[in-house]
């Protein structure tokens, strides 16, 4: 099904593309609910304000007819299937609308035995990108208002989905903002990098939005909420903030699907995806592991080889 999609390059994305995808999603969701293939579909409904969308669980064909897809559909819906949001999967097979980056999260959760493939019906979207957080949403999606993660997206197509909607249109000539920032950081000295992160982390208010939005932060009890013994200071002070962000990045290393939701929801605009990207790059270099749209049996830190690099060990 993916072979039919061909790449078309454009300067801005035509609204007709979103209408076509919306129609296809509605049709598919209504059919699934009608035939009782699934008990519910997780998708996007229009938000109250123009240019917004909110995640929703629809259970009837009539409701399914209100589902939409637009560049405001930024959420990674896979978070609604995890243990942290209890009970959705207990009711039966669930349909879910997924972009390429969401597919990676779903695959990661399958690899960690959190969800089963047969419990899902994935409605994949050939996604051109979504709006960046805090950017202008009145214009059609173009170079100026596309999210940072979408500029370097390598998973436009929903490989491994049950059904794929939309014909891929890609924006042409996007500047890789994140990669540039990453290169700038890596060129810095150790002390400069420390100053950079210290400055960013000291603004953190510990709202834990990055944890709540993350599909992989599904622990029933977070290590960072524990008091006895306390691993990470809970109050928003620089010491605890630094520890929290290091622990968060470490716990996501080798698992993160790169949906950058943590960075999007951060009210203090801390560039969290830089940490995720850095860890992903490191694990690619060291163990040749990459997050994929298809489930993998084991992550890089839950397996080993006898001949792993140990040049740093005396």
């Amino acid at each position, binding site marked *: 099904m993916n072979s039919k999609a061909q790449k078309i390059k454009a300067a801005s994305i035509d609204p007709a593309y979103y209408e076509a995808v919306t129609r296809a999603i509605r049709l598919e969701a209504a059919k699934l609910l009608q035939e009782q293939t699934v008990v519910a579909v997780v998708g996007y409904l229009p938000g109250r304000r123009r240019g917004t969308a909110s995640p929703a669980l629809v259970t009837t064909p009539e409701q399914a007819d209100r589902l939409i897809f637009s560049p405001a559909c930024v959420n990674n819906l896979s978070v609604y299937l995890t243990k942290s949001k209890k009970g959705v999967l207990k009711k039966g097979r669930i349909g879910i609308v997924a972009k390429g980056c969401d597919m990676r999260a779903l695959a990661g959760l399958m690899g960690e035995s959190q969800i089963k493939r047969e419990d899902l019906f994935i409605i994949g979207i050939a996604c051109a990108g979504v709006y960046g957080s805090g950017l202008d949403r009145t214009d059609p999606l173009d170079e100026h208002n596309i999210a940072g993660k979408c500029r370097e997206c390598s998973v436009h197509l929903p490989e491994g989905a049950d059904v794929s909607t939309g014909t891929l249109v890609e924006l042409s000539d996007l500047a890789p903002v994140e990669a540039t920032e990453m290169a700038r950081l890596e060129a810095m000295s150790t002390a400069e990098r420390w100053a950079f992160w210290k400055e960013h982390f000291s603004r953190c208010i510990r709202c834990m939005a990055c944890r709540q939005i993350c599909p992989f932060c599904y622990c029933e009890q977070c290590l960072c909420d524990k008091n006895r013994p306390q691993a990470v200071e809970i109050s928003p002070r620089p010491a605890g903030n*630094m520890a929290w962000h290091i622990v968060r990045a470490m716990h996501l290393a080798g698992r993160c699907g790169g949906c950058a939701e943590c960075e999007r929801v951060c009210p203090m605009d801390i560039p969290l995806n830089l940490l995720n990207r*850095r860890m992903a790059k490191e694990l690619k270099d060291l163990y040749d592991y990459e997050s994929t749209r298809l489930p993998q049996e084991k992550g890089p830190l839950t397996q080993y080889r006898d001949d792993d690099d140990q040049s740093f060990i005396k």
Partner: protein
Amino acid sequence: MHHEKVKHDFEPKIIAFVCTWCTYAGADLAGTSRMQYPDNVRVLKFPCTGRIDPVFILRAFQKGADGVLVSGCHPGDCHYMAGNFHARRRFAAFRALLGFIGVDLERLQFSWVSAAEGGKWVEVVTELTEKVRAMGPMQEFKALENEEQWSGALGTPELKEAFDSIG
């Protein structure tokens, strides 16, 4: 037999996280063989290097360690078959993360010391202590501990303007 204790201006605190089966026994061997090594090192015993969470290292630095040593069995010698293999991957990743955050990796040492290598234990500990002594105290995490949020100036013109505009 007793060495003359040399006075230094700075005595670093080194925390050693060691596995009970190899390195702890190795350190024990060094002791029973009456080998001398710096008393700057505080040894913490764990069942296995696989049990040593990166959070422990972080916590050690936050609470005033100037250097951290993590040591366990050589690959293939793990009492629990694969604990040190997993630890090796985890610490490789953790090291990379700390490096990216901007921590000086010279203060964090990993080593394999078996139960028979009392001499190697002495060598590793002495080398790390001298290296950290030369580098001076670890300031970064300690400074964070003493800082409060919003430590920046509160009376800036921007804030005043924002406050006034609330009306």
